[in-house]
């Protein structure tokens, strides 16, 4: 009950974002029930058919049903987003918390590295990294993670600086808690809120970068129904069979729009004064 009254859901744009992402998760969960065909089944007699009753979004150059591939592709998008988040948030938080807590040389060294990574052109670095370790879905996830953790270190450090001198931390020290225990049990959990907001804001960028890597052939490899790779495969048929490229792009747009709306909505609710544009 009370979750429906959450401020994020009262904000119309935030609510729209939640609906889009809920839809994405739902489609991914029930993909086998939803997809009328196998996402990989080829039928060369049925290639490049326009959208119609038999094939909602038409068929691609190998006669695969575009709708079924889009449905299964939602699983890959969610997998990428989740794995990247699971890697970058803890890594970033640990680095930021350590820097903020210990201060001094540890802080300067860690934050220097963070700043260096923060001022890299992210996409290009991810491209170069994937090119070196070989194109695959896992490597694309790794490359995105390597280039996007610094923001979390920044956020966590800022939070830690405001907590470092707090009485409860001093109390924990007096009780004989180790530094590690204080970091993990007392400080890191308090960074969760700001890290989640940051993640919500970053998700759309992660979706777009992953799709971009897929589009360039550096992400998931065929025949995986990854949206960016599907779009690239449809490129040669753009003029006459536009749906092969258009539909996956629309799916990417909706996913990244959903995350952007949630991020915006969260910012609105948490900081009403800013009234995010």
């Amino acid at each position, binding site marked *: 009950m009370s979750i429906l009254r959450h401020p994020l859901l009262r904000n119309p744009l935030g609510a729209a974002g939640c609906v889009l992402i809920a839809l994405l998760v739902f489609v991914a969960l029930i993909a086998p029930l939803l997809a009328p065909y196998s996402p990989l089944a080829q039928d060369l007699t049925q290639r490049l058919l326009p959208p119609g009753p038999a094939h909602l979004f038409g068929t691609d150059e190998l006669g695969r049903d575009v709708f079924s591939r889009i449905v299964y592709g939602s699983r890959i998008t969610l997998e990428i987003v989740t794995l990247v988040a699971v890697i970058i948030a803890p890594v970033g938080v640990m680095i930021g918390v350590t820097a903020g807590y210990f201060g001094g040389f540890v802080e300067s060294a860690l934050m220097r590295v963070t*700043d260096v990574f923060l001022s890299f052109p992210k996409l290009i670095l991810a491209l170069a990294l994937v090119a070196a370790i*070989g194109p695959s879905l896992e490597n694309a996830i790794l490359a995105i993670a390597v280039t996007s953790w610094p923001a979390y270190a920044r956020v966590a450090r800022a939070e830690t600086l405001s907590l470092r001198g707090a009485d409860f931390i001093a109390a924990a020290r007096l009780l004989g808690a180790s530094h590690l225990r204080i970091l993990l049990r007392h400080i890191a959990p308090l960074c969760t809120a700001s890290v989640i907001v940051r993640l919500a804001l970053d998700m759309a960028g992660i979706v777009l970068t992953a799709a971009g890597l897929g589009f360039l052939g550096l992400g998931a490899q065929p025949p995986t129904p990854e949206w960016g790779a599907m779009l690239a495969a449809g490129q040669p048929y753009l003029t006459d069979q536009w749906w092969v490229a258009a539909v996956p*792009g629309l799916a990417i747009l909706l996913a990244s729009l959903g995350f952007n709306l949630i991020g915006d909505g969260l910012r609105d609710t948490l900081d009403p004064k800013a009234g995010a544009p």
Partner: protein
Amino acid sequence: MPFARTLARNLLAAAATILGLLIVTFVIGRLLPIDPVLAAVGDRAPADVIARVRAEMGLDLPVYEQFFIYVGKALTGNFGESVLTARPVISDIGRYFPATLELATAATLIGILLGVPMGVASAVRRGQWPDHVIRVVSLFGYSVPVFWLGLMGLLVFYAKLGWVAGPGRIDVYYEDLVPAVTGALAIDSLIAGNMTVFVNALRHLVLPASILGLYSLAYIARMTRSFMIGELSRDYIAAARIKGLPERRVIWGHAFRNILVPLVTVIALSYGALLEGSVLTETVFSWPGLGRYITNSLLSADMNAVLGGTIVVGVVFVGLNLLAEMLYPVLDPRARSARA
């Protein structure tokens, strides 16, 4: 001398970033599963040839020595030869970079010319329909995959309507007609006074620049809006209004003038983001710029070219960030003394 100190600190930070960039690209170069020696001599070469080539390539030295040599070469612009074009990477970059600059500059201009008025309108009419429309436009600009929008743009405006020219920078029969001065074809053709080439170049430029510019439009509009909202709530604005100044002068003459400094910073940052964003746009539009050079090299595992391109884009990116930092005290006298 706080200004000199800020300058020194920023320069040092930029140098550290570039050193970091070199470390990362060096490591990426080492991660390659392909042995560069075997790639050069083939796997049937006798052992002594392999050893000799290894020594020639400096690969028998300790890693840190290899790194110093690498840094020395990179700082003098020696990124090795491209396997694909058989030319030094740096001269390839020199050929392709102007096209990227032309595209990113045109896109930034579109972003400024549309984004700034949109942001101001959005702040002035806060919560009313212009604000909502502009919010939706900027959300779209942030969310849309540029490569998809590029393809759809080509489909509609080139293939179906024929309003713009297709992929590439200029039609084949106009190539090399005007002498290169700035490297930007639209400007070079104007300098040469060749209107036919100018119109053709512009027809090629307008679609990719608009699509790339959408991102910077979204970013600039959003930032302008939030700077303006902050400024319009200040006391001196109320004072100006009470004094009876026309609203137009309050907005443009007072509030807007005061957000110019942070706005310039935002524009410099968005320009850097566009250089990077051009990778995907250039691929879609077959635009012969640095982005397409990097992606083409990627697909043929031409690592010298990839890493050379990465370093150049990275250095320009860091340079723009530095510029954005430095413009603050130059444009805003208050920032000179505030930071001591």
